[in-house]
């Protein structure tokens, strides 16, 4: 069974491709949303990644080509690798 993981991750409804949120994480997500965070921002906080817009800006600045399907973790890792290479 193959779910539409890229959409689920992009919408903050899964941790990463093929990795769902655990029950604890779902609770934390709900609490963060009650505190006023959007679902995608809440997901970024739990993943420990920067907010999506910030990541996209960094990727563009680093010259990384990406599509909207690129997940936050993939984008962040790629930006980090490119950054190391350029140093």
């Amino acid at each position, binding site marked *: *069974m*193959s*779910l*539409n*993981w890229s*959409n*689920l991750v992009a*919408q903050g*409804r*899964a941790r990463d491709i093929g990795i*769902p*949120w655990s*029950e604890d994480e*779902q609770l934390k997500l*709900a609490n963060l*949303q009650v505190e006023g965070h*959007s*679902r995608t921002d809440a997901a970024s906080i739990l993943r420990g990644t920067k907010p999506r817009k910030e990541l996209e800006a960094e990727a563009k600045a680093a010259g990384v080509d990406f599509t909207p399907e690129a997940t936050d973790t993939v984008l962040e890792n790629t930006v980090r690798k490119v950054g190391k290479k350029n140093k």
Partner: protein
Amino acid sequence: MAFTTLDYPKLTQKLNEVFNESAKDSMEDFVGKQIFDMPNTDWKIYDYAVIHGSGALSRVAEGAELPTINSNEGDSAAWTQKRYGEKIVITKDMRKFDRYDQMQEVVRSATQEAFNTVDQSFADVLTNGFTGSTYTDVYGDVVSNLSVDAVLLFSASHTNNINSDTFRNLIRNAALTANPALARDPIIKARSDARTYKDPNGVNRPVMLDTLIVSAKNEDLAERLVYSQGVAGTPNVDINPIKGKIKNILVWSKLDTNGQGTDTSSYWFLADSRGVKNCLKAPFAQIPQMQAAEQVTESQNWLYPLDAYYVIGLGYPKAIFGSTGAN
């Protein structure tokens, strides 16, 4: 005596009749088909998409055009057909000594087992829908138990792709304890939870839980809870409000022990008979079928392949509620 290749068609026809008769009986005992949608498909990959309702009627002025309906496409998934099968062996000895009883029994037993295994694979979807994100199915494959929203089949917070609203299909009791044992109180609470379901557009689309699904162990308790004139187990003269609202009790012995041998007899489920087949899907490219024989030269056995193609998929599970009965 079925001995030479000329005897193939004759014996095959006879064994096919046994297969058909046994398949018909097995289908009658096949509980899973009452809650799983089993469409025939030619697609190797079955594309599933949720449609989250559509806009309500609008006031239309005289002579004006009707507005176009507005629907929201929900999550999607792709389910790939898998093949399952075995070979039925008719040995040379069976044929040489005309042991037709044995041949028939071999075919009958293999056919029943094929349908039984499919039924168990359906039941395992329900009993494995509470923890983890995968389980080992009855065939030994590690498969996902996530519904189309990447949340466990039974959860307190199913999500959608439109907004942050969630819905629950994990049964709780009036004290809000999840996974209660089968009793009147959680049935009422689950029916209430289901009726207040709102689709992602915010429209209340009541889910009417009218089918109680229990293991063989819980059959008696389920029938007393639902069919008693008064409230079961009390001396008062109250009417039994559940009677008539739960229209069907499905007793499913495949729920007593799951495919991996774990006791799951306390698990129970409620379904909306009108909507459950939109949630639980099992497209079949081929129901279990027995093919014509092949001869193995060395042993002179005649082998009758028995196989099926199907896949199980979990849609947007608003019409099926579940409890492990642990609390």
